[in-house]
């Protein structure tokens, strides 16, 4: 198995955000994790990406336990996450964002030899490769028009897409997306879907979390439903959607 979560638990001062959760993801899959607001989805991604340390349980990536590792080490190992609310380097341009996000690419290509590029920028064609990759990602994410715009001036949809674009620059093997479609208009969602399908066709494994099922239903091979941090259903999106416990969880939220 490419990726596995076993008995993962996270408690904050008595509140259990993730409760004894276990699931796995195979190479090339798109797995959707959904649940109502406050069901522990974002906490789950933060745990996987190393931004939080779990209270108990294991996270296994390529047969290596990674729970509690530093975010940058996890990213370097190939697991990259995006943020629900886009996190950006406000005053930099879109292209500069991608060049920063290309850090891992340089690191993988050159290793310690990247120190040499400080004196000779052309070492190993690193700079040129990076720029080419950034241009490709811009095209894929349809951000070419905004290339030299400062991130502070982007629309919300563009900001979210830039988040995905930066994650792509990290050349992830497992990409974790935190509510990528929330706040987007229909054309932007279609654009996003196209990008994600393209990623899958190139062998990237995806784990997408969202609170509404619609977007995930079309895209995911498999769905997992969370409620109060615990898994209440797993299966094809259609199966999970019709699971009575899932319906109850959503209904419960509507009544609350």
């Amino acid at each position: 198995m490419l990726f596995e979560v076993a008995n993962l638990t996270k408690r904050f001062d008595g509140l259990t955000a993730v409760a004894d959760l276990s699931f796995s993801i195979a190479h090339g899959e798109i797995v959707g994790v959904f649940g109502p607001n406050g069901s522990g989805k974002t906490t789950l991604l933060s745990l996987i990406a190393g931004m939080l340390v779990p209270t108990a349980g294991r996270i296994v990536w390529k047969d290596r336990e990674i729970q509690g590792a530093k975010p940058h080490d996890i990213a370097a190992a190939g697991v990259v996450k995006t943020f629900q609310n886009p996190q950006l380097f406000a005053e930099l341009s879109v292209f500069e964002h991608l060049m920063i996000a290309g850090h891992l690419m340089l690191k993988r290509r050159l290793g310690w030899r990247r120190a040499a590029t400080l004196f000779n920028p052309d070492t190993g064609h690193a700079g040129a490769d990076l720029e080419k990759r950034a241009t490709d990602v811009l095209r894929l994410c349809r951000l070419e028009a905004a290339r030299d715009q400062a991130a502070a001036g982007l629309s919300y949809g563009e900001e979210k897409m830039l988040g995905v674009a930066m994650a792509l620059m990290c050349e992830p093997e497992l990409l974790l997306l935190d509510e990528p479609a929330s706040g987007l208009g229909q054309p932007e969602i279609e654009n996003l879907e196209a990008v994600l399908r393209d990623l899958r066709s190139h062998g990237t494994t995806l784990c997408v979390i969202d609170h509404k099922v619609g977007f995930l239903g079309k895209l995911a091979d498999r769905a997992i439903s969370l409620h109060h941090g615990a898994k209440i259903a797993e299966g094809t999106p259609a199966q999970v959607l019709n699971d009575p416990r899932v319906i109850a969880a959503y209904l419960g939220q509507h009544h609350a």
Partner: protein
Amino acid sequence: MRLVLAAAAFALLPLVVKSDFILTILVFSFLLGMLAVGFNLIFGYTGQLSMFHAAAFGISAYATYLSMTHWGTSFWTGMLIASALVLALSVIVGTICFRFRLKEFYFAVVTLAFSEMARLVVLNWNGVTNGTLGIILQEKPNIWLPGQGLVKLEGTLMWYYVSLVALALTVIVCLRLVNSWMGRCFAAIRLNDELGDTLGINVFRYKLAAFVVGNIIAAITGGLYAFYLGSIEPGFLSIDQSLAIVAMVLLGGRGAVAAPVIGALVLTALPHMIHLGAELRSIVYGAILILTILLMPQGIYGTLALLGRRRAV
């Protein structure tokens, strides 16, 4: 391009300006400018308000002298040893601060604390540092000149060129760093370190890199400055010295590698150009600091660049 022109202008200046007074001011400005440019790597580019700068500067000044007198090394070897010492200290202080994720005010306070501890040691280690009185340096470093061989580094004109070259090299090194992938890591840390972390940037490593490089530049400056001035005293390591560097960077501008040199020029030249007592000088210095922050937060360079852009549009 503008930098090359500026460097050429300064290189030719002594042909026109023969005043020892003006050239002396410029030597001090170049050296302090070098200090400020190095500090700006940490402060302006990586976003960490370090107060360790005066310590790096002062420790190196003392260490250069001590290695010369106790081990009989040359000035340049002494400077190398002093820089190695500052490198080691910076790694220790930086590791402590960054491992414990001290940020903003807390980082400033802890680096200040280490800097003060260093000053107290220098102040009280009378047998070695001569305490409050400081040390008079009579020796001058040797340098090799084409056609003349090894000569003593003496006189304002020679120091003028040595400090100009040192400043130019500092600016070149910093430009290289800032425009490289490492400079992008610095920017990521300054603007959003959490995001940088998830993008695979080892925030700790590059914070430390900026801190260490900045302090080594300070260390090199420390040796040169002390031997040009001809004396060392514990005030080299004072809080006021650290703050003076911050003021130069703010006044010159944080956003460009060489901009702090403008601040160094103004703050070094101004007190000498208009004759003021120490008290009035302190008032003027304070007023400049306050007015810069409130009215010109981008510094002289940033403000001029902004005006230039507006005119172009």
